[in-house]
């Protein structure tokens, strides 16, 4: 999966889970600050990414990711291992 493909999916899932418009989501957006995800919502987002990409992630590493760009990099790396 290319980074662009992962980016589209990450933004789509984030928009769905947080009730946002995917077109307005930027790579620099932080989940907690700009997108308003509380701790449970952040966990639910990671769970949704796991389901979408059909993989299990390391909990501590996944929950360290703060931004959309970080999530795109994190999953691109995992999917291309």
């Amino acid at each position, binding site marked *: 999966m290319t980074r662009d493909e992962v980016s589209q999916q990450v933004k789509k899932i984030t928009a769905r889970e947080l009730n946002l418009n995917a077109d307005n989501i930027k790579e620099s957006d932080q989940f907690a600050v700009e997108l308003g995800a509380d*701790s*449970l919502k952040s*966990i*639910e987002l*990671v*769970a949704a990414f*796991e389901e979408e990409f059909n993989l*299990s*992630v390391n*909990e501590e590493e*996944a*929950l360290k990711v703060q931004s959309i760009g970080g999530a795109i990099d994190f999953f691109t790396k995992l999917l291309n291992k």
Partner: protein
Amino acid sequence: MKTYELQDIPQPNLLEGMFPYSLPPLIQFEGTIKEEIDGTIVEFDPGEVTTRDIHITDTTFRDGQQARPPYTKEQMVKLYEMMSRLGGPNGVIRQSEFFLYTKNDRETIDACRALNLKFPEITGWIRANKGDFRLVKEMGLKETGMLTSSSDYHIFYKQNQTRKQAMDQYVEVVEAAFEAGVRPRCHLEDVTRADLPGFVFPFVQKLERLSEQVPENMKVKIRLCDTMGFGLSYPNAKEPRSIPKMIWRLRNECGIPPERLEWHGHNDFHKVHINAASAWIYGLNALNGTLFGFGERCGNPPLEGAIIEYVALKGSLNGINLSVITELANYYQKVIGTQLAPNYPFVGKDFNTTRAGIHAGGLRRFEQIYNIFDTAALLNRPPRVAITDKSGTDGIALWVNDFLGLKGDERLTVMKVAKIQRWVMDQYEKEGRMSSITDQELEEQVKTNLPEYYSKYRKN
């Protein structure tokens, strides 16, 4: 001023010499304790407690039973058997005292004896009069406690006696015990409110003179009864409330060795356990307690607390089986029908249960952060989490992994249990719930949201 520099070390210092986790945290001492007695500084070596034969004596069926509905014979026999296993083959729980007054009392002693257990040794308890002593002889007991009240509150206002009349009566019964070959144990009732130089010490010295005529295993034992919980363990507290001074004078001025001294406390001022443990440390060997501290009014030293203290002071189990504490608690709650407070140490439903999400997170990452010792191995009570709106997704993960019995890499992540946590939060935020989530409700959520794990790992 002394300057301390930060030591930024690569590995944590968990102080495992003091907090071994495989045992309760060890109680260690440095140096001596100083006490001023009659204007002179005397020293106590608290480390001496590791070399003395400290032990526990039980009064669950005597004082413990004065504060609650009577136990049935079957219950007492079962409790006695469990106490024997708890204290182990070396007799850390050395003796247990029984009433002798009713037919049921005596049948219970016979039933306990029929178990043929070495420890705890069965002893009696009587008032200090010759009529009661007949009961001890009939039961063939080797030792009996006898009520020898020591304060003027008791002597003058309960017994309507002078000090001389009281002492003469007590001495008469002690002599009768010697004649019958029964070891007397004088319970100095209300000793922390007594005139020590004016009554207690002369009485004890008289007992010592009487003991000169009998062999070592018959000499009078002295039980210090802090009947109203007035005793104080603080250094330099005034007599008669000072536990250190009382023990020092009995040992050094009256010549009573530690193996013939015993502490019996009451919890009227929340000091019952620490006073009893302090009495051990300040130089006597026997700590008298009851299961879960049941006893007159606010209760006695909790026997199970004393057991944990013993391990912490000695640094080893010495044959003690701590998991019997959990068996005893279950027996009280399920068979006898006596509930223990949820926050009661070592046995309460919540003693190692956390409700805070941040604590649950700590428990998930490294159990030792929020568990006092290895409660799963020693007490058969793994740490738990109670689920509320404050316990967080970490709490759910801990609960679910414990429920499914998952360990190590098998454990589910917070992502896997996120749907259950969402249901929990909806209960509080949308449904206005005020109570904790029950285990049954959580099991239903596991069935619904993690069906594949439930069918594979669920506990029976």
